[in-house]
Every structure is written in C-alpha cells, then in structure tokens.
C-alpha cells in the first residue's frame, strides 16, 4: 500500500472513531441531564460538564487527524505511515475507552446529584478520571506523530 493512502486512512479513522465515541458519551449523558434539570434546573450549569467532556473527545480526534494530515507531505516511507496510523489508533481507542467510562459514570453522578447535590464533589471524580484516559492517549498519540 502507498504510504500516503495509509496516512489518509489514519486521519479518517481517527476523526470517525473519536466522533463516534463522543456521540456515545453525549447520547448517554444528555437524556440523564435533561431529566435531572427538569427536576432541578439550578444543577444544570454544574452538570453540563459531562456533555462538554464527552464533546472534548471529538476535538482531541480532530487535533490528531489534523496533525496527521499536516504531516502528510513529509511522509515517504511505509514505516512513517504506520507510525501515523498507530497514533490514530492510540487516540481513537483511548477515546472509545474514555467514552465508555463517561457513559457509565456521568448518568450515575447526575442522578445522585439530583437526590443529594453535596455528593457532586465526590462523584465527579469517576467522570474526570475516565476523561483523563483520553488525555493520556492524546499525549502519546501526539508524541508518536510528532
């Protein structure tokens, strides 16, 4: 396979999978947010963090895909192309893992917050820790690509 084809596949894979992960996280959290805010609208601004963190996954994917495309003219050998592909795979798989985490912890945190708003501080840990996984992936993908 031509190196450039491989790079294009890498970029497309990265953004598509990350967008999929983001939509999985959002579509699980948004209905929970909707039902909680219907009951307690004042919690909305605090709990919005779940959806924004879900959305962040797509932006990380966009970043890596963009970096891969920007580097395309420099890539000549198959090895370099495979490295780009690996960067894309790292980013997209960590995004999927983080999305699964967010999709489980987000709604649980929101329902708990609706009942007892003071539990928010403890329960948000699960959410942000699973989101951190994507950041780690982003860093490694960045280094692989750079």
């Amino acid at each position, binding site marked *: 396979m031509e190196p450039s084809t491989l790079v294009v596949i890498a970029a497309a894979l990265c953004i598509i999978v990350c967008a999929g992960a983001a939509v999985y996280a959002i579509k699980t959290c948004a209905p929970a947010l909707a039902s909680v805010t219907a009951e307690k609208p004042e919690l909305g601004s605090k709990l919005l963090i779940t959806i924004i963190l879900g959305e962040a996954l797509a*932006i990380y994917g*966009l970043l890596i895909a*963009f970096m891969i495309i920007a580097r395309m003219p420099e890539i000549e050998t198959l090895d370099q192309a495979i490295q780009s592909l690996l960067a894309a795979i790292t980013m997209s798989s960590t995004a999927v893992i983080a999305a699964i985490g967010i999709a489980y912890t987000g709604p649980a945190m929101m329902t708990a917050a609706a009942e007892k708003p003071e539990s928010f*501080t403890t329960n948000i840990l699960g959410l942000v820790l699973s989101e*951190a996984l994507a950041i780690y992936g982003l860093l490694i993908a*960045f280094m692989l690509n750079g």
Partner: protein
Amino acid sequence: MQDLQKLKVILFESHQEPVLLFLGKLGVAQYIKVNCEEELDTGFLHACPIPNDESLLNSDIKTRILRDFEDMHLKPDNKIHDEVLLPGKTIKEILSNIEQKLTEIETESTPLIELLDLASTLIKKTGQQLQTWEASHKNITSNHKPQSGQHSPEELLLEANGHLTDINNQLEETGREFLELQSLAFSEEHSIKENSEISNIQSNMSLQGMTLKVDTLLEAEKNMAQCDSIIYFEAWILKKQFPKVEEGINEITNGRCVIEQENPKPEDNVPNVIKHHPHFFEGFESLTFSIGYPRKGEINPTYLIALTFPFLFGIMFADVGQGLILFIGGILLLIKRSRVDINKVGSIQRGLLRSAGMILLCGISAMTFGYFFGEFFGPSGVLHPVLLFEIGPFKFGGFDPMHEPLTLLRFTILIGVSFITLGLILRLINHLKRRELAQIIVSICWIWFLLGGFLMWVYWGGISQITTWFGEGLPMFLTLVITPLIIMLFAMAKAENLMEGIDFTIEVFIETLGHTLSFCRLAALFLTHTALSTMFLELGGVENGIFPLASIPLVAIGTVLSISIEGLLVMVHCLRLHWIELLPKFYSAKGTLFNPLEIK
C-alpha cells in the same frame, strides 16, 4: 466580631408564632433541626408538625392569585418581592389579612376583567367572521360561471364582469370593515393592559411574595420540637445580637420562658458568615462556592482562584487576538452591568454579567501567554515567540509549541508542580492554624516528596533515565522520595492505625503522580487550540503574518468557533483542575452558609 452562638429557648405554644415572627423581622436566626425521637410517647419531645389549617389556607391563596393573573392575561411574577408582610400576631392572622386584601383587589379588578373579556370575545368573533368571509369570497369568485342563453357571448361576458366587480366591491368593503373592527378591539385590549390601574393591581399582587414567605415560616416551625404545650427550639444567632433577642423574647412571653446561650461545641458544624465579594469577583465566587462553602476558620479561596483560574485559562487559550476579543467583551459586559439591575434580567444574561470580571481577566491572561508563545489568531506569523526566562530545561515562552511539543510538556509539568505545591502549602497553613501535629507532619512530607521527586526527574533527565535513579542516584532517591513516604506512613499509623497509614501513603503516592501528569492537559489543550486556529489560517491562505482579504471571513469563523466551543472546553478543564487537583488539598467545602430566616 462575626461569632455565632447557639440560642436555646423553651416557651409556651401560644407564644411560638409571635416569637417566630419577631425573630423573622429581626432577620437574625438560622434554625437548627432539633434532634428528637418521633416515636416516643406523647410526654416526650417530638417534632412540630406543619400547622395544617395555615398551610392549606396559604396554598388556597396561592391558587387564587394565579387564577387572577390568568384572568387578567398577565404573567405571574416569579421573583420574590421584598414586600413587608401584613401585620398580624400569628400566621393565621396574617393569612386572613392577606386574604382580605386579595378580595379587595379582586373586587377592584372585576370591571377591568369584564372589559378584557369583552375585548377578547370581540377579537375572536371578528376573527371568525373574517375567516368565513374569506372562504365565501373564494367560493363566489370561483363559482361564477357564464350562463348559456340567447345573448351573444360578448354581452354575456360583459354583464357577468359587471356583476362580479359589484360583488367584489361590496365584499371588499365588508372585509375592510371587519378588519377595522378587529384592530379597534385589539387597540382597546392593549389600552386596558397598559392602564395604570392594571399595573397597580399587578404590583398589588406582591401578595404572591408574601405567601412564599409564609411558606418559609411554616417550614421553620418544622425544625422546632414540641412536648404537649411546650415548644423548644434552637437557632444560630450572632453573638452581638443576643441581648436584643433575649429582651424581645422576654417581652413577648412576659418572662414565661427559658433562654440559654451556648458557645459552639467542636463537633458542631457552625455556619459561616461569608461577606460578599465585589462585583468584579462575583464569577469566581460562584465558581468556588459551586463545590461548597468554606468551613469556619478555613481559608476562603475566592481571591486565590481569581489569580489561578485566568492563569491556567491563559495557558490553554494563549492567543493575543482572541484574548483581545475576550478582554473587550469583558469590558462591555462590565459597562452593561453598571447600567442594568442584575436581578431583572434573564438567567443566561445574568450569568454573563456576573462573570464579566472573570472574562476580562481571562482575556488579559490569554493575551499575555499569546505574546510569549507568538500566537495571533493562531500561529499566523504576526508575532514571534518571546522568551521570558529559562531555568534548566524549562522555558517560559520563546519556542513554537507546534514544533517543540516536548518543551511545552515540560513547561506544563513545571506549572503543575508549582500549583500542587501551592495547594499543599495552604493545606499546611490550615493544619498549623488548627494545631494538628500528625497532619502538619504529613503535609510537610508531602511537599518534600513532591519536590524531591520533581528534582530527581529534572536532575537525572527524565523518566527514560530511570535506571540511573536506582544506580548512582540511589542515595538521592532514598532521601528525596522514600524517606518522606516512610515518615508519612509512621505519622499516619500513629494517628490512626497501621492499615490506615499504608493506605494513605499509597494514595498520596498515586495522587501526586496522577495530579502532576494531569497538568499535561494544559499542553494538550494548548495544542488543540493552536491546531484549530491553524486549520482556518491554512484554509484562508494566511502566510508570514499577511492576512489576504479572502481569508478574513474564514478566520472570523475560526475565531467564533474557538471562542465558543474551544473556550467552553478550556473553561471546563480549568474548573476540573481546580476542583480535583488544587482545591481538595486544602479546602474541605463542607461548611454551610449563615443564612438567617428573614421576613420584613
């Protein structure tokens, strides 16, 4: 001083409501739920039930007010007015007074309501007539077919045409009349709505606010305890107000009561009197208090966050151009804020106005970091990175982050270590204030461990050289990293028990590592921001700081996207860094606000 004391009062049931109203008018007492077993015999204390008659009457009045609003085609006012409650010695009297006033208002408004009804029926009828007229108009024009007869076709057509114009003229006239009638009815309705009388009535509807206040009063009764005809209640009050309160209660009850004042015990969660910050810092105040209020005697971190939040925001959003937009936006919001009453605008607008100072500071910070990293609407080449200083392997500014991501990563680790150290120093201060020896030792060891590990990392050149840590660097490793952990373990083991100590030490080890690494997100989001801007710059064909005319709309779209989506993302990450990494080190957020029940 703002010291709070516990007020304990025993009095007769007949004096309960007058005392409640008296304290409410002073606005000094925050009631504490009296702890009593509800399932004991009648001779023991049990929680006061909410008086049934009063709450029923209150909800009756509420529905009546809502119905009146509906009748008058007005919107119910949801804001709680600072209205003076009608006089009355007990809640029942107050409620009957409110009811009386409501009846007065209703009789006053009846003619107006009738007029309004008339106008709206008129509008409805003319509307219906107009509809039927339009339908028949269509029918007539379409049904008019030429008749066959002896006349020549031309004559017939001419005749028919004449008829048609006649009919059309007539119909148009009636249609116009209908329209006129309708507009007349509309203007009539409008003038009734603009009538000064109706605005009077609307302001009289402040009764609604009163019912809400009665609700809070009834809720407060639930905190009290009762034993037969004796009432017992506890409340937090300010120390300096105690003589006034004591005198007032004595006067109402003719001395037939027991009043006791008690200093707070260590296990009590004393409410905290929090002064409001100036307008400029309101945004930071709500950010801080969204995780909880400070406990009594704890550092209130609002001003600290006013420094650190824009700092972190600026690193992730480093851009002179976009920072300038935020700065100008902040100034405009501040100007607007001084002109409008913040309680009278919508919730989104209120949130924006409250965070005006925050937006302004974030803009300044973004501009500063943008200058050091050479970003103007992305790396457009207008500015070049400027080196501020360089310590060892750390560079503050002076490099292009897109091409040297590792330098940026090192820079963010430095920021992370300094932030965590700051949090730990504040933790140490908190414990020093409370004189908790074990915790003081733990805090010192924690700082030692963090800075020691950091020094190891810098001195031996990163994680890739980790083998040398255990070779020639072993003595240094033992003193800087292992010793503080062991001291910490023993300190915790002595204070609690051995398992607790081991648990805590492992937690500290993992937490320190994870939280420091977590600051790498500064680098990741910085690069995301730059990449997003670069994409639009490349699409627009911007090179070496020259913006072609055609690129401006594209750059504008990119800027809007950056500020809205990317700005929100950066803000959430800033919040998260504060909520998880910085604040929990020294801020318990378990306090409560001193919020005395107040009715005017």
